[in-house]
């Protein structure tokens, strides 16, 4: 789960990572104006920043981050940024915060290291720009250090943080403070079950202090069980999920909306991905990716089918099940239950059922003799039939 900047800063703040004075998340020009007035006229800030809160990179280049030395400027920027489309994400929320004096900009992140199975620290003295560009043009300026769990039993040791800062050739007057911030950032990453905690830019401000001017944080949804607050990070207008995707998520079903007309429902991400491939190779396009998951019950099957059938783009549905932990009779009962619950629907369901208890499942379906259900013995034949029905 990705957080937007102001949420990332909240998370940093509560874990002791230094960030600018708290700003205000706003949804309207009027709110931005009121916040800017407060910071500039009451608190004496020299200027404010108006920043789009979207879950994608490249906000600055897209015109989503603006400096406003006056209330009028803040209002004008807000009216331009609110509603702006940044890589398919509509800006519904902007964050207004007092502008920081920037002396120098750096880059710092901690992320899951998939290759080495630990954490990867990346630090660069050159920040505030595309870090991948720096990595290409001046690779020596980007320091990477993997930290294994055995090296950080009580958190990241200060010596490792200092070693990173020294290698990155951070200015000596801030090296120690930057190392402290890295230790705190690492602690926040661990405490919050993050898989990414990125600061770009990390800055030295006018007073020579090191602070996180931006925050990009990804949390591990699988760890939600030990973090009561995970649900609070979901914000209307920022989590721009398709309504069906949101509904699926709330039911624990993996669903992704796609742009074709064949609804695809299966068990296991790999099989569902393969089903999308086979549908395409048979001349059709999948309308969605839906993984009912392992051990899908009749109820989960019924809910999943309801979800797919409620999409007006869906002209036929390919139910592709190869049971392992999922049992054939549960699938069959789920399909029967779904057709009962949903009443009349125009689409045909093409079912292909194999694996655990598949014979029993096929028998149950055959006896139910549902007019909307077509059974096919192989994945290829079922795909071809579903494509044919979708284009008929």
């Amino acid at each position, binding site marked *: 789960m990705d957080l937007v900047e102001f949420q990332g800063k909240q998370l940093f703040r509560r874990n002791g990572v230094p960030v600018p004075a708290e700003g205000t998340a706003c949804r309207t020009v009027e709110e931005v104006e009121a916040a800017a007035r407060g910071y500039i006229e009451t608190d004496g800030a020299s200027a404010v920043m108006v920043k789009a809160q979207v879950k994608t990179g490249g906000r600055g280049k897209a015109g989503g981050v603006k400096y406003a030395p006056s209330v009028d400027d803040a209002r004008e920027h807000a009216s331009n940024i609110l509603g702006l489309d940044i890589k398919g994400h509509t800006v519904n929320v902007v964050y207004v915060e007092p502008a920081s004096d920037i002396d120098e900009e750096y880059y710092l992140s901690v992320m899951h290291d998939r290759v080495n199975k630990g954490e990867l620290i990346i630090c660069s003295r050159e920040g505030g720009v595309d870090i991948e560009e720096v990595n290409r043009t001046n690779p020596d300026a980007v320091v990477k250090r993997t930290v294994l*769990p055995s090296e950080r039993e009580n958190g990241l040791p200060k010596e490792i943080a200092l070693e990173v800062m020294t290698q990155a050739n951070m200015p000596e007057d801030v090296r120690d403070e930057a190392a402290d911030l890295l230790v705190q950032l690492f602690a926040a990453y661990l405490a919050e079950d993050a898989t990414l905690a990125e600061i770009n830019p990390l800055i030295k401000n006018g007073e020579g202090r090191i602070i996180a001017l931006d925050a990009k944080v990804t949390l591990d949804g699988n*760890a939600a069980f030990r973090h009561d607050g995970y649900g609070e990070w979901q914000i209307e207008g920022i989590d721009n999920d398709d309504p069906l995707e949101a509904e699926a998520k709330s039911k624990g079903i993996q669903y992704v909306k796609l742009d074709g007309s064949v609804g695809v429902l299966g068990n*296991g*991400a*790999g*099989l569902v*991905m393969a089903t999308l491939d086979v549908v395409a190779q048979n001349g059709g396009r999948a309308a969605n990716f839906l993984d009912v998951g392992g051990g899908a019950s009749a109820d989960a099957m019924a809910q999943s089918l309801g979800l797919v059938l409620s999409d007006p783009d869906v002209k036929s549905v390919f139910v592709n099940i190869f049971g392992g932990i999922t049992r054939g009779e549960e699938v069959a009962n789920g399909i029967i239950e779904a057709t009962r619950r949903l009443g009349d629907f125009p689409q045909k369901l093409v079912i292909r059922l194999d694996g655990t208890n598949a014979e029993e499942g096929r028998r149950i379906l055959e006896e139910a003799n549902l007019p909307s259900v077509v059974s096919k013995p*192989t994945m290829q034949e079922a795909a071809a039939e579903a494509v044919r029905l979708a284009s008929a």
Partner: protein
Amino acid sequence: MSIFIDESTKVVVQGIGSQGTFHAKRNQDYGTSIVAGTHPKKGGTTWDELGVPVYATVKEAVEEAGANTSMVMVPAPFTKGAILEAYEAGIQTIVAITEGVPVHDMTEVYDTVVRRGGVRLIGPNCPGLISPGKSNVGIIPADITMPGKVGLVSRSGTLTYQIMHELAQAGIGISTCVGIGGDPVIGTQFLDVIQAFAEDPETEAIAFVGEIGGSEEQKAGEWIRDNIPDTPVVGYIAGFEAPEGKQMGHAGAIVKEGGPGGESAAEKKEILESFGISVAMNPSEAAQLMIERLGD
């Protein structure tokens, strides 16, 4: 021969709830030696469905029932603890079926159990493994395949079944099939399994099922080119139709926006083919390519 499990495999099941019982029973019916279950509060009782003892700890299952392999079926919040317990009890092969285990938990487990402990950990979030005719540990439906000479390794459970099924219909059996799981941190990698197949005299050909995301397939492909160029190897990478930047189910299955090259199915296919590996566009074609390669 087979890899990782065989006739001497003695399994303790951690997690004897309804799913654990259902699948352990199926494993037992197949002939797998399930010697015990564990439950912290049910030590000293009998696991009625399987007719084997239940111990409070894995250590007791090792000492009293001779368990050498563990199948972990506990819920995700307890998986880290269960794997560490099996490791500390001296279990040498741990198969973790559970899905949804946090990344941080697995990072620590991997460091302790695999990197420093040298124990064979398969999964988590995997279907387990089967050596047909010998042992089945996990949730792979055994009745769709039979003993044979193809080693199969996969990041996806159901997709593996699909290919096993299609091979079996052509009369081709399996030496061992290993579902390694699709999570970002898993105990056993593609390459580990392929290397084990290369050393197994009964495995004459290798089929592997990859996915979008990461670069494990490329690493395995390079090793195959350099070490076993004459072994028939067939691959399929799921997700040709997966849009960039969208998570497709598995935690690992995502084509990263602006990430390092080679994470899409098309890119992986191209790289693997440059290593001399036949790469199919779908599971049926993978089975077909394997049938053709074996028929040569």
